[in-house]
């Protein structure tokens, strides 16, 4: 039995099988300090989205809705083909349409990019997540949200360099593409890849997908796309959802795909130095106080003070500050 499926197009295995993705396969777990080393290393998988082959049919969206049993609302037309208008807890993947006039050829190009979770090797969502076990990463590369552990804080949204997770308005939990971890676990590829009529979405081991991408890029170069390339951004340690782009020199033309995505420095410092320095500072403040309390004497009111008060209150004239040699207070 293979540990990871090699394709999305084959039919599911007939024999019963145990889920291939379990606690023992986790390599990262949000807000968890010591995670036991996994017993085995699963073959890394990847979904490759060939934007140059995509016809924007939205079969992936529909397969995603069906498989995950989500219910996106029937919205409105706002003058574009991108529908629903954004990712949501009911729409984990979205075709984003961009009309781009190539300045070199003056020809229109209709760029259609399937947006969704990139399954980063260094996932910003997981780094940002404060809830233990709400976000996990399997040794095959899938980054998954475990909804029963999610507290709905939205930190994953801030941690994600691709602006992917969405918080449900009803159950206040975070949702995104799971790379169909529930299918992959039992030897099937993601629903979107299975549904894609042109195999613009393919699925397999990351190694195979990179090889396949090389062939596609060679084909695109032969058709005049000199800058065709693979989008597997190193800034997030590579991704397990990759794109073949005809214009890999400018990913941003594909509906603002980040040119060089990485976890935001703000998030890095929040989840890095602030977390530790913060604990240290608070700890020091508490420790300092305790130490002071132990080493020094309490500041007690003495009998002289009581007498002084007695004297002062019974002889208000003594209140003249001038008599005490004090100057009247002035604001500074």
């Amino acid at each position, binding site marked *: 039995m293979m540990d990871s499926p090699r394709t999305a197009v084959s039919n599911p295995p007939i024999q019963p099988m145990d889920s291939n993705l379990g606690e023992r396969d986790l390599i990262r777990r949000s807000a968890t300090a010591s995670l036991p080393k996994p017993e085995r290393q699963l073959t890394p998988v990847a979904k490759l989205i060939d934007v140059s082959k995509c016809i924007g049919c939205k079969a992936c969206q529909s397969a995603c809705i069906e498989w995950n049993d989500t219910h996106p609302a029937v919205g409105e037309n706002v003058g574009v083909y991108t529908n629903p208008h954004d990712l949501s807890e009911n729409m984990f993947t979205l075709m984003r349409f961009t009309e781009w006039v190539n300045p070199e050829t003056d020809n229109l190009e209709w760029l259609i990019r399937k947006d969704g979770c990139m399954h980063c090797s260094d996932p910003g969502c997981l780094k940002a997540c404060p809830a233990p076990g709400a976000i996990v990463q399997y040794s095959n590369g899938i980054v998954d949200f475990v909804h029963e552990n999610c507290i709905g804080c939205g930190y994953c949204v801030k941690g994600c360099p691709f602006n992917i997770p969405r*918080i449900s308005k009803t159950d206040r939990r975070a949702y995104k593409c799971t790379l169909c971890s529930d299918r992959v676990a039992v030897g099937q590829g993601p629903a979107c890849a299975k549904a894609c009529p042109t195999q613009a979405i393919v699925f397999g081991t990351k190694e195979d997908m990179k090889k396949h991408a090389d062939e596609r890029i060679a084909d695109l170069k032969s058709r005049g796309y000199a800058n065709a390339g693979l989008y597997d951004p190193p800034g997030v340690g590579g991704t397990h959802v990759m794109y073949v782009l005809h214009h890999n020199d400018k990913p941003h033309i594909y509906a603002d795909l980040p040119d060089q995505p990485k976890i935001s420095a*703000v998030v890095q410092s929040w989840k890095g130095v602030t977390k530790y320095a913060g604990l240290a500072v608070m700890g020091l403040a508490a420790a300092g106080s305790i130490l002071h309390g132990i080493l020094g004497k309490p500041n007690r*009111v003495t009998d002289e003070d009581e007498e002084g008060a007695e004297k*002062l209150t019974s002889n208000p004239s003594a209140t003249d500050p001038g008599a005490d040699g004090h100057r009247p207070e002035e604001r500074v």
Partner: protein
Amino acid sequence: MKAERVQPGDAIHPGNPITVNRYGPAARANHWITAVSLILLALSGLALFHPSLFFLTGLFGGGQNTRAWHPYIGVVLFVSFFIFFAQLWRANLPTRTDVQWLSHAKDIIGGHDEKLPEVGKYNAGQKFIFWAMAGLILLLIVTGVIIWDQYFGAATAVQTKRYAVLIHSICAVLIICVFILHVYAGIWTRGTIRAMTRGTVTGGWAYRHHRKWLRDLAGRGRQTPAE
């Protein structure tokens, strides 16, 4: 009347020992609402701040409730604190004496009040806590609203939220430190806590720590008849 030294309601009660009214019931209630809010916020916030403190969510009935309640408590704190603020801000305006007082850092820490200059209702340390609280709460409420996704998720860009959450956590750390200082000072300086429980302090306490305040009160005849 020097507002920064004496406030409405402050009064001396002759007796043995002498007691001095420092906070009325409304002010005390206000303080404790603020205090409880701050404690709850610190506990719930810390739970989300560091994984080792996530267990604190148990106090609130789990992570979802912790996340949901925290911002509402924040609003309570904000409102409550600023009602309090309105009452106290004049008395906390800085004075020249504060500078002198602060220059005796060693005596402050050592508890040698007799060596310190006379101060009014609040000393510079208390004023620092007051203003630090005010400033940090303001920053916390602003950044907190920005990251309160349930209602304001669509209002700002993700990058703004990232800065907000960073600032929010730094401010939270600072306010907790200020809080620790405040609580410790209250405990260390014996006789202080009753100001916020019973509302009064002893004459000796006032004489020792806020002699100018006591002097002002005495001088203005703010005394109630002996019983």
